[in-house]
């Protein structure tokens, strides 16, 4: 696929997101407020109950910061509303037109998805700037420039991994009519074991060791830990490399699935 087309698709998506969607801002702010209230109420209660100052390496202010930033980075990683686009296009037959074009369908989708990332980052940064002044300092996390710089590549890799992992259940649409529930389930599990609700270090030890071997943590937990200064440079590099290896793994899985899927595709609805 030629780079000009890729950039063009990206910029169209970015402009679309920034220009004519009021709900882009409203949903963002509303969900953020809900998230803030929930994590604040939840963790204050838990810490008060336990009577400890530090739980699994987090103090109250630290875990609240995690809650805020995993939400903000997670939004960027998950991207806009493309999560069901592929399944929908397979289901209603609008995939057909892309099959006639001399370009790779999944690349065009990735270009669109990547077009989401800049408006999302912009928005998340803006929200972070609004919230940071209200945050109290913590002994267990350290938000500084190095962390922020290291976080950006981790977010890009996580974004790519999320895209590829998301494609797989969507392509089930070639075989089954209703993949919506499957996708929602996958999403919830992914969020939970990827650390989008709380850090994996709060899971029981036996589960932790399993979860650290799976790709999910690179989606949400890893970029957030990097941002909060909890990841050393060496660990950061291994993290990024493992994330990319997982991307390669899913790519190898996606290619035959796509082949077989398009073989079965009947282009319904025309």
């Amino acid at each position: 696929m030629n780079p000009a087309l890729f950039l063009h698709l990206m910029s169209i998506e970015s402009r679309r997101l920034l220009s004519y969607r009021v709900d882009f801002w409203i949903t963002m702010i509303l969900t953020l407020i809900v998230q803030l209230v929930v994590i604040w109420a939840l963790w204050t209660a838990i810490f008060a109950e336990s009577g400890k100052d530090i739980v699994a390496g987090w103090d109250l202010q630290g875990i609240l910061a995690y809650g805020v930033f995993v939400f903000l980075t997670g939004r960027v990683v998950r991207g806009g509303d493309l999560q069901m686009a592929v399944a929908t296009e397979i289901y209603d037959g609008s995939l057909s037109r892309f099959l006639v074009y001399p370009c790779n369908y999944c690349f065009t989708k990735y270009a669109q998805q990547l077009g989401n990332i800049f408006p999302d980052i912009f928005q998340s940064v803006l929200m972070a700037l609004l919230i940071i002044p209200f945050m109290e300092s913590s002994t267990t996390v350290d938000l500084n420039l190095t962390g922020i710089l290291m976080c950006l590549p981790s977010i890009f890799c996580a974004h790519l991994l999320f895209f590829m992992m998301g494609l797989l259940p969507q392509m089930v649409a070639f075989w089954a009519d209703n993949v919506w529930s499957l996708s929602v389930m996958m999403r919830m599990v992914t969020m939970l074991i990827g650390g989008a609700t709380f850090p994996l270090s709060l899971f029981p030890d036996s589960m932790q060791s399993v979860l650290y071997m799976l790709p999910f943590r690179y989606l949400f937990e890893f970029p957030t830990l990097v941002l909060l200064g909890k990841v050393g440079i060496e660990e950061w590099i291994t993290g990024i490399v493992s994330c990319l290896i997982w991307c390669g793994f899913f790519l190898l899985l996606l290619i035959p699935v796509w082949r077989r899927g398009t073989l079965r595709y009947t282009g319904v609805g025309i």
Partner: protein
Amino acid sequence: MIEVKNLRKVFRIHQKPPGLLASVRSLFRREYVDKVAVAGADFSVGEGEIVGMIGANGAGKTTLVKMLSGIVHPTSGEARVLGYNPWDKHNDLRRQISLIMGQKAQLWWDLPGADCFELLREIYQIPRPEYESNLKRLTEMLQVEDELNTQIRRLSLGERMKMELIAALLHSPRVVYLDEPTIGLDITTQKAVRDFLLSYRQDHAPAMILTSHYMEDIERLCERIIIIREGELVYDGNLKRVIHEYAPYKQLTVHLNRAETAAVDKDYLERIGKVMEEKAGTIILRIPRDQVTSAAAEILRKFSVQDLSIADPEISEIIELIMGGNEKPQR
């Protein structure tokens, strides 16, 4: 340019029975029925040729076009388009073909036409000068210069269809599939589309396959037609010749003088030919080709005739007969 050999497509359809109990049962034991959409098609289309594909709803036209454009894999059989196997989806082939679906919007819904075309320029990697001149010529011809900056979803059906046509021809494809390109358009726009297609053919000599339910389209655009019935090709040949091959009769229309009107003997007429209509002094008869002249002579002798004409039946009538499976080829 297009070669098709024994191409078949059988859809395996999962039966969804009505009712809750039945659908629960079908979760465990699925029942399939095989639906033959295209039952072994053989034909070829040459350069500069527009072939009209005609058939009733559900005859398999769209399925055939989908296979030839590489969207759907056939169950068996072969096809070669510009030397490529279409469902290999080779980019060199895809750059040279185009598909227009009248029933389905293909352009990006949220973008104005101008932006869609710009994207297509990159998808097809059309050199800038060629793109500019093509775009200018196509938009002028279809008179949509003023709508170029309107979002596709805000256009009327006809305006959108014109945009789709431009989008499909920007890269000067050598093979064009048109699936009902004039559906739902008004007569003027239909004509504009037809003229547009003819002029494209003149400039580029592409191979085109056109499906349409409007006889006018077929008669104006196609010298050759393929009639498809329940997935089978039942006629492939010259449009004009279809009459000679399938219509063993001619139509005789007689206008009688007023005085004669009362005195027509129906039984007598039935002996000459099949009476299609008989009222107020006008009689329409269907008469076997070889008996037309003698029948006309007899009528002229018997009645006081004001006017008499002999004509071939309408092509659309014949095609309807063939599509419905009631044809009696005269061989």
